[in-house]
Every structure is written in C-alpha cells, then in structure tokens.
C-alpha cells in the first residue's frame, strides 16, 4: 500500500469522527485526487478479508466494522437496551431532516400532535440537536446530528432522497379527497353497520 494510503488508514483509525477530504488533505499534504485514490486503495485492501471497511459517512470518511460482525461487537459494547425507534420518532426525524432547522411548534403543526416528549427523547439519544433561535426571537430550532447520519448511513445532511419522491401523486391526492367526500355515504349494500 502507498505511504499516503498508510497515513490515511492511521488517521481514520485514530479519529473519533469522520474526516472530510479536506481535513485528510491538510494533514497529509496531498491533494483531493490523491486522497480519493488512496481511499479507494485502502478500501480495496480491506474489502477482501478484513473486519473493517472504509465508509463515506456523515460528511467525511471513516473506518468502521462490517455489519456481519455486529454480534461479537455487541459483546464488547452493549447496545442501548431499546435501540428501536417508534413510528412517531421516525416521522419526527423525517420532518426535521427535510426541514431543518425547524422548531417544535412547526413540527407539531405538521404532525398534528405535540412533539415535546419525542423531540426531547431524540435529543437525548443524540439524533437531534438544538440549532439556535431565529433572529428576533422564537422557539428553539432543531437539526439532525452526525450521530443521526451515522446511524442511518447517510453521507451528509443532504444525502436524502428528494422529498418530491415521497409526495402523493396528483391522482393519489385526488383519490384521497374523493374518498373523504364519500365517507359517510358508503354504498348501502356494503354497509352492514
């Protein structure tokens, strides 16, 4: 492996957070193209047999253990007892991820529920963080964290599918409206009460 590859491996190993191309370039006195090449080389060397892999994640590059080793890793570092996320938590995360920075009242209005507890829980678990209040005052706004990006395997805060992809299509939205208009007017035959 090249000397630059070795240097990058050492840096990714030591760094407690993902390192950007720029940070890697600064520390190794190499340019971005050379860094990219060395990252590829490093990934190839690891891919064959290693427990580790090179990943682009959360705004930078990191070494991490491969997914198939989760079992033995958990024996070293116990996972938090409840690692799952409720639908409420996932929907709140989705709202923040697409609209950040966004305040609790704004999330509440969109979701139709009060989200104080859910937001606090997500802050506690490190998926959301406070992001200041708007000029002129107002509610604290929130954004997603690097931990969120790591846990969801996102390369950065913009590594989300465009929201348009999730929108109801015109016909879907129309169908919804039509169904609602018909509600209460169900066909007598199907209506068994």
């Amino acid at each position, binding site marked *: 492996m090249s000397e630059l590859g070795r240097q990058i491996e050492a840096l990714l*190993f*030591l*760094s*407690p957070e993902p390192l950007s191309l720029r940070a890697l370039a600064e520390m190794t006195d190499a340019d971005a193209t050379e860094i990219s090449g060395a990252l590829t080389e490093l990934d190839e060397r690891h891919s064959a047999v290693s427990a580790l*892999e090179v*990943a682009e994640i959360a705004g930078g590059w*990191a*070494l*991490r*253990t*491969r*997914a*198939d*080793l*989760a079992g033995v890793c958990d024996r070293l*570092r116990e996972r938090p007892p409840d*690692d799952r*996320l*409720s*639908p*409420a938590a*996932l*929907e709140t*995360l*989705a*709202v923040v*991820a*697409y609209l950040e920075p966004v305040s609790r009242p704004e999330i*509440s209005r*969109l*979701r*139709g*529920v*009060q*989200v104080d*507890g859910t937001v606090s829980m997500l802050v506690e678990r490190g998926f959301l963080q406070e992001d200041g209040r708007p000029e002129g005052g107002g509610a604290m706004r929130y954004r997603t964290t690097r931990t969120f990006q*790591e*846990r*969801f*395997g996102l390369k950065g805060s913009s590594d*989300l*599918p465009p*929201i*348009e*992809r*999730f*929108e*109801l299509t015109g016909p879907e*939205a129309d169908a*919804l409206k039509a*169904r*609602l*208009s018909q*509600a*209460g007017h*169900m066909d*007598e035959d*199907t*209506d068994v*009460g």
Partner: protein
Amino acid sequence: MALAQPLQLPVDLDLFQGPFDLLLTLLLREEIDLFELPLADLVEDALGPTPIERWDLSTASELVVLLAALAELKARRLVGEQVDEEPDADALEARERLVARLVAYAPFQRAATWLLERFSANEGTRYRRAPLGLATPAPAPTEDPARLAGALNLLLMAPPEPSLSHLTSREVNMPALLNRLRNALTRGRSVSFEAIVAGKGVLEEAMTLIAALELARRGEATLHQEQAFGDIDITPTRGASA
C-alpha cells in the same frame, strides 16, 4: 425501492401516532366500522394527561368535528333515513383542511418509512469511539530493550573468582622453607639471606625471613646483620645441626 403506501397502514389502534393515522385508517380502510372505533377512548387517550404525543388541539378538534358528522350520517342511514345532503359547513371545512394537511404530511410519513429501512440496513456497523488521547501510537523507540536484559544479566552473573596471581604463582609453605634453610646451613658455615632469596617473589622473601627467624628462635641458627637493610648472615649454631 417500493414507496410505503400511506394508504395501507396497518389497522391497530395501539399504533395510531396521531390524528392523521386515524383519519387515514377511517377513510381508506372501509372495513373499520365507525361504530367499532372506541372514539371516546381515542379522544381521551389523545388529549389525556399521559399520552406520548398529545394531539395538537386544533387538529384534534377538526377531526372530532368530522368524525361527529360522519357518525351522524351513518346513524341516520342506519335508521333508514334517506341521506343525500352533505354534512354541515363546519364538517366540510374541517374535511378540506384535514385533507390538505394529510396531503402535506404524507411525504414525511413515507420518508419515515424510508428512514426505517436505512435504520435497519445500518444496524450492524460500529464506529470506533476511542478518544484521541487514548489511541496513543507506539512512540518511536529510543531505548533498546536489550539494554534492560543486559542490566539484569549483570545482576544475575556469579562473581568471578578473586585472582591470586598478585600473591604468588607457586605454593609456598613454611615447613619446606625451614627444610631448605636447614639444608643450606649444613653445607656451609653461614649463608647469605640475599643469596637464598635471589630471584624469589616478595612473599617468598618475607616467608624465608620468617623461617630464618624461626630457626634462630629454635636455637638452630644465629642471625647477624652488619647494617640496617643490609644482608643478613645466617649461621648454624654449633652442634645444633644433625
């Protein structure tokens, strides 16, 4: 990747996360009969003191208005009334607003499903979290561990035998010296001390002197020295030698 269908949410009252879930279920899963829904319980749970997420009050009231209108329509139909007219204006307005909000919110519900897939897919990977300070690389060695072994080895070695070379290279013993002096005295009237010890070491010289003094003490010889540090004449006592 298949998009989650907000129109196909599971029907499970425990899973209602908010008014929109309930609304969707009511509207789009016709097999749920309005009268089978424990509406009062739902509302109480949603607005009560201990829900995880209390319903937003304005959303909840719009939903209740709509549900009441739907329930009324249905009740009238059940008792055989011909029901052609639309629900009242409040209910219509609530319906419009709810649909608009539902349409606006649907993308986030679908995005949440997408996030859930990512969450599961990335469950296995783990990142190193060792603080930088702990991950000390091996410092460049400045000392050779062989020096440690060397230092200990010195302590563990047996001490060398003390050298006797500075003392004498030959056996020197008093009886042999006495006999040698006696033999010399039988051959002549007197012998010179210096002649006897010529070419001998310091030790042998000293011991020869002691042997001479011993012969004098035993009365076998007399010693005579002309001047200090000069030669010593050793003369056998008459009749003493055998």
